[in-house]
C-alpha cells in the first residue's frame, strides 16, 4: 500500500513537473504552424525520455550513485569535464528561459514589464532552495503544476478529429516551410529529452534514498509519469492547432499570443489558467534546473551535496545554485526576449544530447555499478537510437537555426 502511494505520488509529481516553458512554447508554435503534423516529435521525445529516466532511476537505486557521479568515477574527471561543461551551459540557458517564463506570466498578470520580475523571481527561487527541503521542492511545486492539465481538458473540450491526431503521431514530411518544420521538430525533441530532467531524477533518487526495492516503482513512475506529461504537451499542441491556427494565427513569435490559446475555451478563466500554468510550471522547472546546476558541480568536484542539508553543511552546493540563479536572471533583466531564448535553448539542448547520453551505454552495462540489473537488448537499442538521434540533431541544429529559426 505504501509503495502504491509512493508510485502515485511519483507519477503525480512527474506529470506536474513535465511541462515547462520549452515544451509549452515549442508545442504551441508547432500546433499553430503545422496543425497536428508534429505530434510525432512529442511522442518520440517522450518515449526517449521514458527510457533515459528509467535508466537514471535504476542506476541510482542499484549503485547509489547519480549519473554525474557515475560518469566522473567511471571515466575520470577529464572525460567528465565535457558533459559537465555542455550540461552547465545548456542548463544555464534553460534556467534563464524558465525565469523568463515566470517573468512573462507575472507581466501578463500585472502589466509590469517582464524585465522587472527576473531578479525577484530568482530571489524567490533562491529563498525556497535555501530554506526548503527536497520534498517541498519536488512535491509541492509539482502538485501545483497539475494546473497544466487544463490544456488536456481544453483539447478534449475542442473535440478534435482523433483520427487526424493519431495520424500526426506518425512521422511525415512537411508540405510547406520545410526548414521551419524540421527546426520545430528539433526544438520539440530538445524540450522533451532535456538532460536536466534525467540527471535531476537520478539525484532525486539518491535524495529520497532509493534502493533496489524501488526498481518497480521507478519503472512505473518513469513510464506513467512521462507518458502523462507528454500527453499535456500534446494537449498544448492540439489546442494551438485548433484555436490559434483556425483563427489565422499561424506564427507564434510573441509571448502575448500564448494566452489566446485558452481564452476561446474557458473565457476569462482561460487567461487565468494560462498565467497560472506558465508561472507554476516555469517556477518549478527553475527550481529543478537551479538545483541540477548545484548537483552537477558538487558531484563533479566531490563536494558535499543534498537539498535536505543545511546550507552551512554544503557551502559549495548552496553557492552554486545561488550564483546560477543570479546569473540566469541577468539576460532576462536586460530585456532578452524569453520566447526566443527558449526556442534557441531547446535547439541547443537537442544538440548537446550525445555528450550526456553516450555514458549511459557504458554505465548501464557495467556490472560493478548495476550488477544483474544491467540494460537488456531493448534498453541498449533505445540508448543507441537516442545517441544516433542526438548526433543527427547536433549536426542539423545550427543550419536549421539559421534557415528555420524564429
Amino acid at each position, binding site marked *: 500500500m505504501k509503495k502504491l502511494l509512493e508510485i502515485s505520488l511519483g507519477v503525480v509529481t512527474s506529470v506536474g513537473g513535465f511541462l515547462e516553458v520549452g515544451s509549452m512554447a515549442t508545442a504551441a508554435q508547432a500546433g499553430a504552424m503545422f496543425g497536428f503534423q508534429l505530434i510525432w516529435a512529442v511522442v518520440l521525445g517522450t518515449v526517449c525520455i521514458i527510457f533515459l529516466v528509467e535508466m537514471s532511476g535504476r542506476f541510482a537505486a542499484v549503485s547509489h550513485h547519480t549519473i554525474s557521479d557515475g560518469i566522473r568515477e567511471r571515466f575520470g574527471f577529464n572525460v567528465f569535464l565535457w558533459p559537465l561543461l555542455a550540461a552547465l551551459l545548456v542548463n544555464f540557458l534553460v534556467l534563464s528561459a524558465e525565469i523568463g517564463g515566470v517573468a512573462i506570466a507575472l*507581466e*501578463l498578470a*500585472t*502589466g509590469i514589464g517582464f524585465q522587472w520580475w527576473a531578479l525577484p523571481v530568482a530571489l524567490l527561487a533562491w529563498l525556497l532552495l535555501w530554506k526548503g527541503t527536497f520534498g517541498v521542492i519536488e512535491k509541492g511545486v509539482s502538485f501545483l503544476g497539475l494546473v497544466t492539465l487544463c490544456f488536456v481538458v481544453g483539447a478534449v473540450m475542442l473535440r478534435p478529429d482523433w483520427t487526424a491526431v493519431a495520424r500526426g503521431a506518425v512521422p511525415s514530411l512537411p508540405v510547406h516551410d520545410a526548414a521551419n518544420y524540421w527546426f520545430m521538430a528539433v526544438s520539440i525533441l530538445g524540450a522533451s529529452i532535456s538532460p536536466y530532467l534525467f540527471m535531476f531524477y537520478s539525484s532525486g533518487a539518491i535524495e529520497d534514498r532509493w534502493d533496489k526495492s524501488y526498481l518497480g516503482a521507478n519503472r512505473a513512475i518513469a513510464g506513467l509519469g512521462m507518458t502523462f506529461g507528454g500527453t499535456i504537451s500534446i494537449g498544448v499542441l492540439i489546442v494551438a492547432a485548433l484555436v490559434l491556427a483556425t*483563427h*489565422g*494565427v*499561424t*506564427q507564434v*513569435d*510573441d509571448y*502575448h*499570443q500564448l*494566452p*489566446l490559446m485558452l*481564452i*476561446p475555451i474557458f*473565457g*476569462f478563466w*482561460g*487567461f487565468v489558467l494560462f498565467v497560472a500554468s506558465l508561472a507554476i510550471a516555469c517556477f518549478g522547472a527553475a527550481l529543478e534546473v537551479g538545483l541540477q546546476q548545484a548537483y552537477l558541480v558538487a558531484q563533479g568536484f566531490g563536494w558535499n551535496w543534498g537539498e535536505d542539508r543545511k546550507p552551512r553543511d554544503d557551502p559549495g552546493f548552496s553557492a552554486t545554485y545561488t550564483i546560477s540563479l543570479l546569473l540566469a536572471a541577468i539576460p532576462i533583466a536586460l530585456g532578452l526576449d524569453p520566447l526566443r531564448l527558449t526556442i534557441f535553448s531547446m535547439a541547443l539542448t537537442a544538440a548537446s544530447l550525445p555528450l550526456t547520453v553516450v555514458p549511459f551505454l557504458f554505465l548501464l552495462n557495467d556490472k560493478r555499478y548495476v550488477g544483474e540489473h544491467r540494460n537488456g537488448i531493448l534498453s541498449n537499442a533505445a540508448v543507441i537510437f537516442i545517441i544516433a538521434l542526438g548526433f543527427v540533431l547536433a549536426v542539423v541544429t545550427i543550419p536549421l537555426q539559421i534557415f528555420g529559426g524564429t
Partner: protein
Amino acid sequence: MAHQTPDLIVSRRYLRLDCLCLLLLMLSACSSSDQIEQQSRTVASASQTVLMALDAWAAGAAPTAYTVDTLQSIGKTLADTGAQIRSAETSEPTEQASLTKAVNDLSVAVTRAEAGLQADDRLKVQDAQQDLRLASRALATAYAKYFAPKP
C-alpha cells in the same frame, strides 16, 4: 579545341560572368520574393492575433492591460515588417505598394484600437476592429495579386 583564339577565351569569360550575374540576380530575386512571402504571412498572423485579442477583450475575457500590451507589441512587429516589405527590392512595384498600404492600414487601425482601449472607449475600439478586418482583407487580396502567376 587546343587552339582557341584570345577573343574566344575572353568572350567565354564574359559569358561565365554573365551567367554568374544572372544566377545571383535570380537568387536575389528569389530571396526577395521569399522574404516578402514570409513577411506577408507574419503580418497576416499578427493582424489575426490583434483581432483575437480585441474579441477576447470585448467579451470581458482578457484584461485591458494585457490587451494594450499585446497591441503595442504586435504594432511594433507590424511596423518593422512593413518597413522590410517597403524596402525589399522587387520586380512588381505596384503589388508591393498594395501590400505596403495594407500593412500601413493595419498599423493605423492597431494604433486606433490601442487608443480606444486606453480611453476605455468601446465604440472607438469597435471602429478600429472594423478597419482591421478591412485591412486584413486588403492584405489577403494584395498578397494573392503579388503571388498570382504572371503572363
